[in-house]
């Protein structure tokens, strides 16, 4: 029993409570937020190693035996996501120190960030489908608060669409969870995997899997249900955009990997062509949408959609190699996407606008920021030895090995268009001459640059240390697809069914 799995949930929750009480005193709220995030970061790093050494960590909430109670579990995928969540929250908090409006900061900004981390961590650790729904709602509520914090007209308009479409996706999830309980009589993921893979009548299961695909797909911003993302992500403060851009859509991808990797593993093969088609369309639509945009954050928001397509491709290949590459790509993308938002956001913060036409001259004014942008955007495009290369290489290799030529072609082609958009921002924001005199603008201080530096350093480390990162991704993908091992770890050496029957007798 690995009771330590409760720690990354209890600590952010309690800190959020305390930070709410002291939110009038900014310093205290800041200290508490940083301390809780540092704790989760340390715990995530420890968990990463522990999972690699000792395998899957499992505990049962309240001591209830496995298929009856709520299971918390951590495998390689959970550990990676938990660590990256804490890292992103930490750099977001650091970036907020330099950028955020003091009134917003007092208005429960840090408690909301901590609750978001709480919800995400819970979603990554739970082994129960209904519990996953509850965690999704927790992180959604926190994100609702963050995206509308400030209450400008744009935020309210974008926020309304964000809220309503996510709520609709959640209800689809709830319907799916209800139906799956009706079909299989359990909600524990290990138990579900055991029962669904042996079920005789697959048509109903396919239909239920469709509900989950829609629910998680729209949370991950896959085509054609991505519209909430580009309409809302550029409206809140820069720090919030960066955190959401890096993290939230990937929670949807995580849920897809988790649920379709274990619970619907037998369905995955059947749905794989559909997922691949969705992935390809998502890549293309996202990248074309970005070409039309003329605002830094809105270009980057459309690129989130495009990149999520690559992660869905990892799932759609329905193999260990595909999932491995998908996980590696996701880890890279979480870091780099946030880095790009922070760097572009820093330029926006200094210039006072994110419209490309009104920006310019940043390369001369802030050369260090420009270098960071080049590194991060090359990493996003996938130029070796930066981190994006290995994820994309893995995806394309897996696609070639499985002879999925169309998706391989699309994935490679979309990379070129990604480069186009990144160069567009480079030209407009950094390279072209400034139309106005920039000398009165504030300089980028250490507080503005440090968060991006940390993330770019992580991205470079992921690229240079690609071998261990790939090894870990293989471990994570194998664990995520290993339903027999999951049932053994969660329910003990006998199957979950045996445990349930033993109690019923």
């Amino acid at each position, binding site marked *: 029993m690995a009771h330590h799995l409760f720690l990354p949930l209890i600590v952010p929750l309690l800190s959020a409570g305390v930070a709410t009480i002291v939110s009038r005193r900014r310093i205290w709220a800041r200290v508490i937020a940083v301390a809780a995030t540092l704790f989760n970061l340390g715990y995530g790093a420890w968990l990463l190693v522990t999972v690699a050494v000792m395998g899957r960590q499992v505990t049962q909430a309240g001591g209830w035996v496995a298929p009856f109670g709520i299971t918390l579990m951590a495998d390689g995928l959970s550990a990676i996501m938990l660590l990256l969540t804490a890292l992103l929250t930490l750099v977001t908090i650091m970036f907020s120190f330099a950028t955020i409006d003091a009134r917003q900061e007092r208005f429960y900004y840090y408690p909301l960030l901590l609750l978001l981390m709480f919800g995400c961590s819970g979603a990554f650790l739970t082994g129960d489908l*209904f519990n996953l*729904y*509850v965690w999704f*709602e927790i992180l*959604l*509520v926190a994100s*609702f608060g963050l995206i*509308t914090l400030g*209450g*400008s*007209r*744009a935020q*309210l*308009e*974008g*926020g*309304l*669409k964000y*809220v*309503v479409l996510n*709520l*609709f996706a*959640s*209800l689809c999830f*709830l*319907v799916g*969870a*209800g*139906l799956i*309980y*009706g079909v299989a009589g359990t*909600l524990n993921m290990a138990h579900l995997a055991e029962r669904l893979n042996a079920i005789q009548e697959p048509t109903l299961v396919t239909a239920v899997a469709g509900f989950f695909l829609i629910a998680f797909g729209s949370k991950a911003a896959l085509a054609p249900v991505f519209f909430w993302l*580009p*309409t*809302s992500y*550029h*409206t809140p403060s820069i720090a919030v955009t960066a955190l959401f851009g890096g993290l939230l859509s990937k929670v949807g991808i995580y849920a897809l990997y988790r649920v379709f990797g274990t619970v619907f593993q037998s369905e995955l093969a059947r749905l794989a062509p559909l997922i691949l088609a969705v992935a390809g369309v998502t890549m293309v639509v996202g990248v074309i949408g970005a070409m*039309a*945009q*003329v605002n830094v954050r809105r270009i980057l928001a459309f690129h989130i959609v495009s990149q999520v397509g690559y992660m869905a491709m990892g799932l759609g290949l329905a193999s260990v190699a595909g999932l491995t590459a998908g996980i590696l790509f996701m880890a890279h993308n979480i870091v780099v996407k946030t880095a790009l938002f922070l760097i572009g956001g820093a330029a926006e913060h200094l210039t006072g606008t994110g419209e490309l036409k009104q920006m310019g001259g940043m390369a001369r004014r802030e050369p260090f920021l420009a270098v960071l942008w080049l590194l991060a955007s090359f990493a996003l495009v996938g130029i070796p030895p930066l981190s994006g290369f290995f994820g994309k290489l893995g995806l394309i290799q897996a696609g070639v090995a499985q002879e999925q030529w169309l998706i391989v072609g699309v994935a490679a082609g979309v990379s070129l268009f990604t480069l186009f958009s990144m160069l567009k921002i480079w030209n407009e924001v950094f390279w072209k001459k400034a139309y106005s005199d920039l000398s009165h603008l504030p300089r980028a201080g250490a507080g503005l640059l440090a968060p991006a530096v940390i993330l770019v350093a992580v991205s470079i480390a992921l690229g240079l240390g690609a071998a261990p990162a790939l090894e870990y991704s293989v471990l994570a993908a194998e664990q995520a697809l290993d339903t027999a091992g999951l049932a053994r770890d969660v329910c003990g050496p006998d199957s979950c069914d045996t445990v349930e029957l033993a109690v*019923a*007798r």
Partner: protein
Amino acid sequence: MNLILSLVVGTLFAGGIYLVLRRSVVKLILGLVLFSHGAHLLIFLMGDGLVKARTPFVRAETGVAPPDSADPLVQALILTAIVISLGLLTFVMALAYRADQAVGSDNLDDMTSTDQL
């Protein structure tokens, strides 16, 4: 009885989707309300459905619940889901009210400023 309840669920979903597709924000929210009610009743049906059953208390002497007891899990699930949707829908209403104040319109077609180039 289960058939009636199934029809009710279907009607709620249909009405919910119809209202969600309307332009008015208020109707949109009402649609979400109907949809969430449909989802809750659907979970209810996924247990034993609407049957007359005993309270699911475990007997002390045998350690087992009587065979004709109701499924307690679906009720716990619905309760959780109702509480969550209550909170979220309240938030949506507050948000819609603020959006209405800021935009000066209840029409979703007037709320496109964040989508325009």
